[in-house]
């Protein structure tokens, strides 16, 4: 399969997870009920998945642990800004600003 066809197939499969999860109970109707234990387990999946995507990017450099890197510094600034101010653009502006300053300005 060519790369382009594989990419569109990937989109369709990801899209299916979107409609399948969103539609799960809407499509089934009220006959189905989710056991409370499963509901409580499911609540933790997105936070765990987000952290599983973010933390390696902030802590690893080429697969090796490297806590002292510009991306982690930028990430910490993002956390600080996002928890302190409600402006939705600010974390992006400050995070990218710090990263570019450290990488391009100071050559880190």
């Amino acid at each position: 399969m060519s790369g382009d066809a594989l990419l569109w197939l990937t989109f369709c499969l990801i899209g299916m997870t979107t409609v399948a999860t969103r539609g799960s109970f809407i499509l089934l109707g009220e006959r189905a009920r989710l056991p409370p234990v499963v509901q409580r387990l499911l609540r933790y999946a997105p936070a765990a998945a987000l952290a599983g995507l973010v933390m390696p990017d902030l802590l690893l450099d080429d697969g090796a642990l490297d806590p002292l890197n510009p991306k982690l510094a930028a990430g910490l600034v993002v956390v600080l800004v996002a928890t302190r101010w409600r402006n939705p653009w600010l974390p992006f502006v400050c995070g990218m600003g710090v990263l570019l300053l450290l990488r391009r300005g100071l050559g880190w």
Partner: protein
Amino acid sequence: MNPAFRDGAREGIRDFMPMSVGLLPWAVVTGIAMVSAGLSPLQAAGMNLIVYAGTAQLGTLPLLASGAPLWLIVLTALALNLRFVIFSAALAPAFHDYGLARRLASSYLLVDGVFAMCTERLLKADDPHWRWGYYLGPSLWVWTLWQLFTLAGVLGAGIVPQGWSLEFMATIALLVMMLPMSRTRPMLVAALAGGIATVLLRGLPLRLGLIAGIAVGILAGFAAEHGLQKRGAR
């Protein structure tokens, strides 16, 4: 057009309006991230139409760019979307008297913001026309905003010169999304455990580290919830 439907749509859009502004940076950043991951404008538009889920799009882009296997990408998207199962269960009674076409359309259109703002009134309303308007109005408004502003991001990213580390925008977006989620202690435990486990398990074959890390996070959060309950009960 049915007057109850029109009223519902108007009220739904009005109720949702304050959340609209917060949506724009996500859309723009998702557009930028798609280009940074190597998608052409056509592919980006296609992903946006087919997937239509910011978190799943932003989360799978780094995996797409690094050539991760298909099953890992799909499983990760599924984990990121699992919260919708709960939304769907909560919202389903509001659609009980609708046919399959409306149920399918409302499934594709369901997003966090509309769920958060509109569920309460939807479940209370009796008139099916009003309900349909109240759901469809803000949902289509979000859909339109999302498509337009991701396109702005796609076109804007093309102008920015190479070497500006624009791919980091996706990480910032995921990080900002994680923060309000981690406000309760068990959630914070789930996030920290999931992240640290993924880092530590990165050497696992078949890139199982991410999936294993997510599983560790879920169990850690659940265990923390139980531990806190026990302590509170004593």
